[in-house]
């Protein structure tokens, strides 16, 4: 009796085909974005779809995007904000994680709860009072205002504390016995041991920072301070002009590209990062 003809085998094959179809349906809009960045305007707003551009634009849509709005500035600002967010969060989180995990001091538990309780506060709730706060500080429409209020994330402290806790006390004690100072121990003993955890944290913070829309939307109104996430609206909701869908797809592709690269090369870390980041939401 042939195995291939058996109903069990056939239904299993059918189930795989169905799963593949589901995957393609979910992926299609991403493909649409990527391919539309190289299509002409009438081909994008069209009731039919061609898998490859019929009227290939080369990098034309990207050039058009850069002509209409300061795309380079958006890209620079997004990168700057992400770099500072990642750097500050990594440093402050490692410091605090070390302090909370390896030292005893009065109020340790209370301060730790104080820090991690802020993980439950969504930006949506903070946006009004934070805006008033930076207005009082004179930071509206400035890099400080754009970057500082969001440059640190309590999730990092929570995560680093767990990892520092796993570092054996003997290593730290041995360094102390050898006469190393506390700051030296942190930078030359603790920090190197945290490298893998810091890499995961960097990916998580990068994703959050790169996609952050709400804070840049309210903190800055000047175009030269906009990031990609807010800048993209100057193509889809332009002031006194028709929307430029091709340019919008080109910018959408640029905004997705770093995440796509992370996904292709570090899929495991990215999935882990996104799953862990879910806790913060």
């Amino acid at each position, binding site marked *: 009796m042939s195995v291939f003809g058996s109903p069990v085998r056939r239904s299993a094959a059918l189930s795989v085909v169905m*799963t593949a179809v*589901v*995957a393609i349906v*979910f*992926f299609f*809009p*991403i493909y649409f*974005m990527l391919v539309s960045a190289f299509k002409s305007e009438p081909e994008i*707003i*069209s*009731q039919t*779809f061609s898998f490859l551009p019929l009227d290939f634009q080369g990098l034309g849509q990207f050039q058009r995007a850069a002509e209409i709005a300061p795309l380079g500035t958006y890209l620079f600002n997004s990168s700057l904000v992400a770099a500072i967010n990642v750097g500050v969060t990594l440093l*402050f989180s490692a*410091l*605090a994680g070390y*302090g*909370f995990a390896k*030292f*005893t*001091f009065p109020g*340790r538990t209370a*301060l730790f709860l*104080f*820090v991690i309780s*802020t993980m*439950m*506060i*969504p930006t*949506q*709730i*903070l*946006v*009004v*009072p934070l805006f*008033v*706060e930076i207005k009082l500080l004179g930071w509206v429409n400035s890099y400080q205002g754009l970057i500082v209020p969001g440059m*640190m994330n*309590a999730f990092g402290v929570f995560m680093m504390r*767990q*990892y520092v*806790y796993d570092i054996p*006390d003997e290593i730290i*004690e041995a360094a102390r016995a050898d006469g190393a100072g506390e700051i030296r121990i942190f930078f030359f003993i603790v920090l190197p041991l945290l490298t893998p955890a810091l890499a995961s944290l960097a990916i998580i913070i990068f994703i959050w920072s790169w996609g952050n*829309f709400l804070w840049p939307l*309210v903190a800055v109104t000047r175009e030269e301070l906009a990031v990609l*996430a807010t800048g*993209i609206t100057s193509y889809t*909701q332009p002031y006194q002009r028709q929307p430029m*869908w091709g340019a*919008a797809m080109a910018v959408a592709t640029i905004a*997705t590209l770093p*995440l*796509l690269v992370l*996904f292709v090369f570090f899929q495991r870390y990215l*999935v*882990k*990062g*996104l*799953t*862990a980041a879910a806790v913060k939401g």
Partner: protein
Amino acid sequence: MAMNDVRQMAGRSVTDLPAPSLTRHRKWWGLLFVAPAVLFFAVFAIFPIGFGVYLSFTRYDLLTPPQWIGLGNYTGLFRDRAFLVAIGNTMLFVFGATVPVWVLSLWLALRFDRCFASRNIWKSLFFSPVLPPLVVVAVIWKVLLHPNGLVTGLVGPIFGVTEIRWLTDPVLSRLVMIVVNDWTMIPFFSMIWLAGLAGVPDDLRRAGELDGASDKQIFFLITLPLLKPTAVLVAALSTINAFQAFVLQYEMTPDRGGPADANLTLGLLILKYGFQYFRMGEAAAASVLLFAVILLVTAAQLWLGRQK
């Protein structure tokens, strides 16, 4: 590491690590190490919460100093048609962004949990919607859902029409917001379910198979009870996210929440009151109310997580 953290947060108290053994008197160093983080959160998280509560009791337009009006903003909100409409819209969105997402994300996670040919490729394609930032998701779908766009081209012929106003029709646009949200959230929550499924021992399921249990019995009697921590996490996260939703509505609908406030969510209302009308007091009061809802959901999550 990720799933460990997730479980720890979902199920266990965060303070129950045993005390460190380094109990020498290095108090000041410990305080010094935690100081930058503590100060940062004091200034940019805890203070604004208190400040927001204060602002919610005042009338404040950013120009003249805040003026204390007691509960005026709260009573005003509940008499405000836009606020009541926003509550209704938000509740509808929350429903659409939770129940279908839970069911479909778990169902798809179970499909991708099985072994089959080139599974990783299909899995990568399926996960891809989590990649673009939410505002980019909104832009992609705005193009797909153009009245004369591709989705109209696919669906229109069935109804014999050549133009569909997906985003400017009050009923359709509400449905579309939910579908687009669920398109990015289903793969995301499938990821979390899959991480949870990885912790369900295979031999338990196989033992069930040997005892002659049906696939359904194995799922409902063995797999699902073991997935409870994941289920609590998925339920809480999706609910909290949905209550704050505003990005899709902001970017995709006419007049940022239209047509005629059909897609005005609480998140959008806070933005409109605060940064369009400069009614900071009312915006702060709406934020406080939204925060109360989110705290309730978090409390429910912690309570459910503790139940055996």
